[in-house]
Every structure is written in structure tokens, then in C-alpha cells.
């Protein structure tokens, strides 16, 4: 994570290439709508990751296609379960819903879950994150959704209890149908709890903060640190690009003092193309590898 333009995409590309060179199987995916990975690796990328180097696959998520597919699925389910007229009346609602706030981060969550399941056997999944605001919404989505889901679950249980009481008194029945809404809410709760656990467990998700030596980048980095802390997510490493000699992240703010740093030495040439990335890593082998070993 980090402010726009601090070098998140290049750092993610270098980090992934370095891990692949060490023999790990790595999937690098850009969740950033700016899609810089296709520029860095000089090839068109899509939702279906392609191999760009031995053991390294790269892909880019197209949010819009994930939103379209999700809404199409909801629409299909509604058409199947609703009577014709109600489904017909919802058409207007669905034509504007794709622009609703919140769907952007949910599309990223769906893509993230899909990739995590599909590449569960791989050593590393590296995500090049979107700008700060969207990234924070992405990480906050499970916790925020759980607040709502738990409230709805309690209300639904109250309704079901009363319905069962009515059925018992009126029809003397003792067996009741499973409530589909309750099932779905429980399913949602399970999904968000798994996500929240994955985001807050440092053995499953390690968040790297990329920053530059300028005041705006420092200020945004601090905000990221505190916002993640509120969500119970700890920063795993900092990557201080263009770092002035003898300055560390701890000099920016004492909160960064306990977070190990993984800094890439400044490159003389633009880091474009997988060969250029590999060349850079070979030239800076000692320094980069020793820092990677810290991880």
C-alpha cells in the first residue's frame, strides 16, 4: 500500500521477481485500476494470469467485468425465485445499481477470493494494491459487513422464533422449514469472518507500506498505519523508495521504528521488462537478498 506514485507497482514487480528467482512459485496480481503491471512487464495482462518468467505469473483484475458478472448472477437468481411481475419491476433498479458505491471494493474482494482459492497451493500471492482510499475500503469491507450481518442475523432469528411459535399454536406442527434468508446471512457471516481472519493474521496476509521522502507521502503513510491498526491489521514491512542516505522510516515517525524495512537501492535505468528487473536484482543481489531474508 502507499500513496500514488511512490513505486508500489515497481516494488511489487521486483519483490515478486526476486521471490521467483529464489525458487518460489509466485502470482503477482494488480488490483489497481491504473494497471501498471502491463507497462512494467510490457505485455497485455488480464484476469487470467500469464507466466512472464519461470515460476512467476502476472495478472490484472478488471473490476468492471467482476461487477457485471456478480450482478448478472444476482439477476439470474431473482428471475428464478421471483414471480414475473416483481422481477420485471426491478429492471430499473438494476440498470443503475452497477454505479453504486461499495461495489468496486466488493468486486476486488470477489477477485481476491477467487485467486486465493485457485492458487492456494502457490508459495506467494502478491497483490499490487489500488490507491489508499480504495485499499482501505477493501480491507475494511469484512469488518464493516460483519457489523450489519450480525445485526440482521439477530433480527432474522427473532422473526423465525415468532413464526415457529405461531405455527406451533395454529397448526400444531413441530418441524419447520429452513429459512433461506437465515441460511444466506449465516453464509455471509462465515465468508466475512474468513476474510477478516485472513487479513488480520500476519501468517496469511503481510501488508507492505511503500513510501517516498516527501511530506505528503509521509502524512499518507501515517494515516494508512493508523487506519490499518483500527482494523487490527499490522504493517509487516516498509519499503522506503528514494530514501535519503542515513534516514530511516523511524525518522519519519516513531510508530515505524518497530517495523522492519525492505528497501530497494535506487536504479539508474527504468525498471521496465522482466529482463531489466532480473538484471537489477542480479546487480543488487547482496543487498536485496539480505533484506528479503529478513522476511
Amino acid at each position, binding site marked *: 500500500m502507499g500513496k500514488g506514485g511512490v513505486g508500489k507497482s515497481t516494488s511489487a514487480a521486483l519483490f515478486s521477481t526476486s521471490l521467483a528467482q529464489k525458487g518460489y512459485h509466485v502470482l503477482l496480481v494488480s488490483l489497481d485500476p491504473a494497471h501498471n503491471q502491463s507497462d512494467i512487464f510490457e505485455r497485455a495482462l488480464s484476469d487470467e494470469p500469464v507466466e512472464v518468467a519461470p515460476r512467476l505469473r502476472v495478472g490484472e483484475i478488471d473490476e468492471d467485468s467482476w461487477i457485471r458478472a*456478480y450482478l448478472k448472477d444476482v439477476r439470474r*437468481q431473482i428471475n428464478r425465485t421471483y414471480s414475473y411481475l416483481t422481477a420485471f419491476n426491478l429492471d430499473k433498479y438494476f440498470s443503475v445499481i452497477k454505479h453504486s458505491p461499495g461495489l468496486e471494493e466488493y468486486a476486488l474482494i470477489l477477485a481476491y477470493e477467487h485467486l486465493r482459492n485457485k492458487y492456494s497451493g502457490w508459495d506467494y500471492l502478491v497483490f499490487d494494491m489500488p490507491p489508499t482510499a480504495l485499499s482501505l475500503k477493501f480491507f475494511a469491507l469484512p469488518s464493516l459487513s460483519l457489523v450489519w450481518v450480525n*445485526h440482521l442475523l439477530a433480527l432474522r432469528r427473532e422473526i423465525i422464533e*415468532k413464526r415457529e411459535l405461531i405455527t406451533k399454536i395454529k397448526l400444531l406442527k413441530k418441524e419447520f422449514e429452513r429459512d433461506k434468508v437465515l441460511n444466506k446471512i449465516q453464509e455471509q457471516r462465515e465468508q466475512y469472518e474468513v476474510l477478516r481472519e485472513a487479513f488480520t493474521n500476519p501468517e496469511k496476509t503481510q501488508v507492505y507500506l511503500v513510501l517516498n521522502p516527501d511530506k505528503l507521502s509521509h502524512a499518507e503513510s501515517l494515516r494508512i498505519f493508523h487506519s490499518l491498526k483500527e482494523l487490527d491489521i499490522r504493517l509487516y514491512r516498509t519499503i522506503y523508495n528514494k530514501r535519503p542516505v542515513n534516514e530511516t522510516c523511524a525518522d519519519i515517525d516513531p510508530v515505524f521504528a518497530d517495523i522492519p524495512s525492505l528497501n530497494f537501492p535506487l536504479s539508474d535505468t527504468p525498471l521496465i521488462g522482466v529482463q531489466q528487473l532480473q538484471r537489477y536484482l542480479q546487480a543488487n543481489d547482496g543487498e536485496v537478498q539480505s533484506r528479503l531474508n529478513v522476511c
Partner: protein
Amino acid sequence: MIRILKTVKDKVVEFLRLSDEVARSNAVETIETEVEELDNIFGVLVLGSYVGMPSPPMQISLDLMPFMEKELILMMEKVDTASQPLSQLFSVLDMG
């Protein structure tokens, strides 16, 4: 004679069955109204954005929507009676 007695017995049984049914219906009438209100609250909470109310994160509403046709219809019906809360209350309490 036996036929007459059997008919009388059947009528009495039917009367008792109906009385039981009516008593049971009366006993749960208020709870039924309460459940209807709770269903409406649940509908407004989940599908509020459909009628311009604040709503939970969009994906929660959308995931539940395929299973909530009943609540959606109830929510729309409630709009018609929303302006007459007193007459609704009198009807629940069987007054007037």
C-alpha cells in the same frame, strides 16, 4: 336413531374443532401482526435503497435479494397504509 346420533356427534366434533381453530387464531393474531412488522423492518433494513432509505453495504442487500420477494412486496404494501397508523392499530386490536 343411530344415524341421527352420529350426525349430532359429527356436528359437535366439527364445532369443537372450529372453536379450537378460532381460539388458536385469536391467540396468535397479535404475534402475527408483530411478525409482519418485523418482516417489514427487516425488508426496509436490507432493501432500503430500493425505496430511498440508507442500506447496508450493497453486496449484503444484493446477496439476500433473491430470497426476499415476500418482504419486498410487504414493504411496498406498507407504503399504502403508512399514513393511517391509528386505523391499522384499531384493526389489530379488533376495535370499532
